[in-house]
């Protein structure tokens, strides 16, 4: 099971580090010295990307929070939530962020002296949880805190998944036996072992879960030895970990198929391939650098005469999209890397041409042939029309 560097150093590493941190803070207070909490700065300006490594890692920048009138609230809340998380680790209980929010509210309700710590909405408690993870440099899952499973519906006639259960027993899921139901990866896909009944030719990750379902319903998995995954927009930790698992264990070519716009390029494809700035400490286990961008490519518009549209001047959404493309080229180390020049070129094309194209545009090529999008995808893979 893949775990953070901290967690890898031992089962009780996180409680140990947490207690040591609290001990330092207490000692500082005893000496009337201001305690300082240091956390990894999770932002693009502290992200380092090299093509060889393939994913973002954190730079040296830290966010130091020193105890003063402004930070005392944040610090108290951090220690308060840390106590709840440590209790969970000790008892083996797991919770979602939302549940932790309500647990914190419950603590406040039952202990009046904690009333000042009360959270008014979940964003506040989520920020504290993230701060703790950045401070200890561990995954949220290491703290027994899981997000809701979202995205990653997977279809295949060849894939078999073996899951190690908490009691040590092994559960085997043969995806070909699930009928029309997809396999849904969990937030912690690292305890899954993958096998292929027959050699798998490729794995296709599609931005829209709906389109993934359509391709499968039209027989793509029957006609091809493949895995089809619906990403469901920005890939969740579950999807990212799952794709990384497929990359590492099956060694099959991975292709991403999504819209041709800056949002898809950065927020979806780049997150899947190289991780994100917000999750610098987890990108190692949650990125699949071998994923290729299959499309929609600018050249596809011309080649297949796809229905694209012009970005509307004056439309707030469209203008934001263009601004995003410019910002990405300016600030994102992934697109600034010379080896990803071709991907950066797509962004330049978007800025220059002011056009967008959606993945569903493949359905315009021959509306009477439901397999046309599949044929185009296969042709693109065969002729290596991807980046």
């Amino acid at each position: 099971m893949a775990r953070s560097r901290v967690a890898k150093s031992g089962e009780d590493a996180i409680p140990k580090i947490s207690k040591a941190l609290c001990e330092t803070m207490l000692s500082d207070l005893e000496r009337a010295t201001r305690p300082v909490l240091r956390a990894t700065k999770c932002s693009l300006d502290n992200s380092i990307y090299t093509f060889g490594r393939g994913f973002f890692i954190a730079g040296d920048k830290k966010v130091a929070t020193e105890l003063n009138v402004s930070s005392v609230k944040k610090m108290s809340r951090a220690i308060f939530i840390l106590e709840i998380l440590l209790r969970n680790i000790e008892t083996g209980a797991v919770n979602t962020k939302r549940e932790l929010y309500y647990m914190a509210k419950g603590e406040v309700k039952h202990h009046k002296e904690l009333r000042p710590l009360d959270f008014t909405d979940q964003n506040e408690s989520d920020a504290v949880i993230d701060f703790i993870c950045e401070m200890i440099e561990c995954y949220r899952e290491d703290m027994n805190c899981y997000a809701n499973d979202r995205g990653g519906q997977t279809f295949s006639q060849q894939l078999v998944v073996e899951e190690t259960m908490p009691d040590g027993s092994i559960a085997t899921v043969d995806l070909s036996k699930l009928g029309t139901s997809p396999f849904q990866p969990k937030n912690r896909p690292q305890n899954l072992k993958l096998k292929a009944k027959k050699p798998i030719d490729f794995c296709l990750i599609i931005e829209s879960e709906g389109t993934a379902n359509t391709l499968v319903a039209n027989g793509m998995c029957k006609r091809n030895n493949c895995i089809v995954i619906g990403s469901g927009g920005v890939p969740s930790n579950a999807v990212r970990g799952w794709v990384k698992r497929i990359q590492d264990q099956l060694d099959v070519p991975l292709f991403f198929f999504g819209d041709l716009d800056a949002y898809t390029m950065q927020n979806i494809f780049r997150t899947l391939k190289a991780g994100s700035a917000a999750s610098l400490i987890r990108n190692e286990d949650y990125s699949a650098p071998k994923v290729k961008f299959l499309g929609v490519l600018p050249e596809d518009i011309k080649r297949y005469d796809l229905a694209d549209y012009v970005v509307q001047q004056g439309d707030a959404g469209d203008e934001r999209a263009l601004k995003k493309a410019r910002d990405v080229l300016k600030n994102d180390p992934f697109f600034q890397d010379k080896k990803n020049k071709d991907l950066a070129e797509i962004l330049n094309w978007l800025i220059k041409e002011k056009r967008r194209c959606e993945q569903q545009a493949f359905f315009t090529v021959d509306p009477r042939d439901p397999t046309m999008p599949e044929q185009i995808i296969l042709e693109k893979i065969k002729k290596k029309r991807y980046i």
Partner: protein
Amino acid sequence: MSKRKPPEKKAKSAPSEATMKANRKITKSSTAEYFSKNLQQVGFSSPTKAVLTTLKEAVDNSLDACEDAGILPNLIIKVEKLGAGTLKNTDQIRIEVEDNGPGIDPEDAPKVFGEYLASSKFGRGRCSRGQQGIGISAATTWAQQTTATGAKVTTKTKGMRKAQYFFIDVDLKNNKGRVRERQTVEWDKPHGTKVSFLIDGRIQLNGEAGLYSFLNGNILVNPHMTLTYHLPDEAPVTIERVSDDVPTAPKPVQPHPQTMQLGDFLQHASIFGGDMVGNWLKKGFSRINEGTIAELIKEHKVEKKLFEKRLNSLSESELKSIYGGLQNAKLMAPSTQSVLSIGEKALAKSIRRLGQIDFISVHTRKPTICDYKPMQVEVAIARLAGKATDSDEPVTVLRFANRVPLQFDKASCAIVKALQTVNWRTYGLKQPKGSIPCGPFIVAVSVVSPFIKFKNASKETIDASDELVEELRRGMINAGQKLSKHLRREIKARELGEKISHIEQFAPILVEILCRITKATKIRKEKAEQGLLKILEKDTKLAKSQLADAATRLEQYIGDDLDGIKGLFEGQEDRYGEQGELIPEDGIIEGIADDDSSLEVVDIESEAPKKSGKKKKGQKSSQAPKKGPKKASEPAKVAEKSKKTEKNLKPAPEKIKPKAKPKSKPKDKPKASKTKKKGAK
């Protein structure tokens, strides 16, 4: 063979020759007849408006008369419902307005109340409320038409031992005031006028077109007026004056030739008759001098000999050539001396008579020329105390033209258009796109000018020319900037207060949880608590001093008694020259006036002492001795007062008297320390 014309067919019901002749006859009707048939044009378009217009005309006349005579006005208004009216859905209403003005010469009474276009103010180029002499005669006509009465007038001038009572109506055929009844009566007033109308109408108290809004408006823009009013089913209310200065009516200025049309110009020439043309131009107009005449001769090809002729010897074409030359001449802009503003100080004092207010931002623009007419804009923004600041209710807009409240046709008014185009979000107010801002604020905007362009004869709304809207916007932006500054200070004070409470609240929790996680002993816990206190003590001190500083700034300028603002305005009333330029203390005129030297922030809530704002050039030292401001720690009182103001800004019913000036104020330590301690426990 020539064709014979068919005989012309006559329509069966064709009128006879005699009838047709009678129909073609051009008849002449009097001005009074015209207005009696078109009373809707002068504000009598509905029963509700009839009540308001009648009252407005009577009040305007009273205030103008008092100001002309240099008398501080004491007005008593009575509005009574007497029963059902003769018109459908109306009541019979008596409206009575009594003043302590100079009184009306008995010979003039029929002219004033019964003759249209008989005015002492018409065309004088002054910022008086009334201009043409239509309104009060229209009120008499309305009374005549709806209740077959007229105006009942009791008047007494200074020299009279007894008063004269008149019952006047309008001789519509001849546009003359007709005295139906005249008596000599006893009246214990030394001088004054009381006028009463019995009309059909409907009383609306609340809302923008209500009587309260009218009264509030007048209270706001007439700080020198004491007003007592009796409204149906309400106890009498007296609002005391807050200023003892009668607005000095500025001298009317001679017309500017470039603001006149040819007809006016020719008419003006006929008044001067046999004067020499050169003299006429220099004396009869503003901004014309020898240099102008030389320019007319040299550059605009007006014959030199014309200026040496007598005016009545000039032909019309010669006058036209002079007029044409003047239109192209490089003349100075018209004088702004004739505008009569309310003044920031008076406006700031007066606005507080509308209810419990915890912030005022007032800005008076310097007089300027708009659409080639002298003009001055004043803007006051007041926040009602004790109301939610994030309210979605639009702000209350009070509009004034020459100190007369405007209550109708809001949407097309220049003031509202300007209000909608300012981005109030920048200044911390909510504002739906393209609308007026929201929140518990009163935005009062006054335009004064001897030549306001109204959209209609009933003077309900100001025409929105681009130049005027821009000038209004600038006034609003100035006031908005002050408001924003104040709101930012409030936020800062609140944040600092929160920080102090953070230390008290969170510090013990932090130590407690740390000790639980580390399983620390009681001794360690106590030691950590002491250490934490040491650390935070320093922070607390800093935050407290910042909080006191912020509170002090919030307290600037004004306390409950308003004396605090005095220093800010000393010597400011006369600081503009003829062109609206700033005249500094040394008398040397500089280019640009300092617009920012006006009242900025008013806060009566907290206890910190007042502190003057930035001293600006041309402004005298504002550190006049001030009386200690009202204590903020009276939330019950404040809440009680704010409740009173909630009914559509009803003026506070209790008597408000100006408080005595304090003799001196010790420069004591900031009282804000009390406020701090409240939070600090």
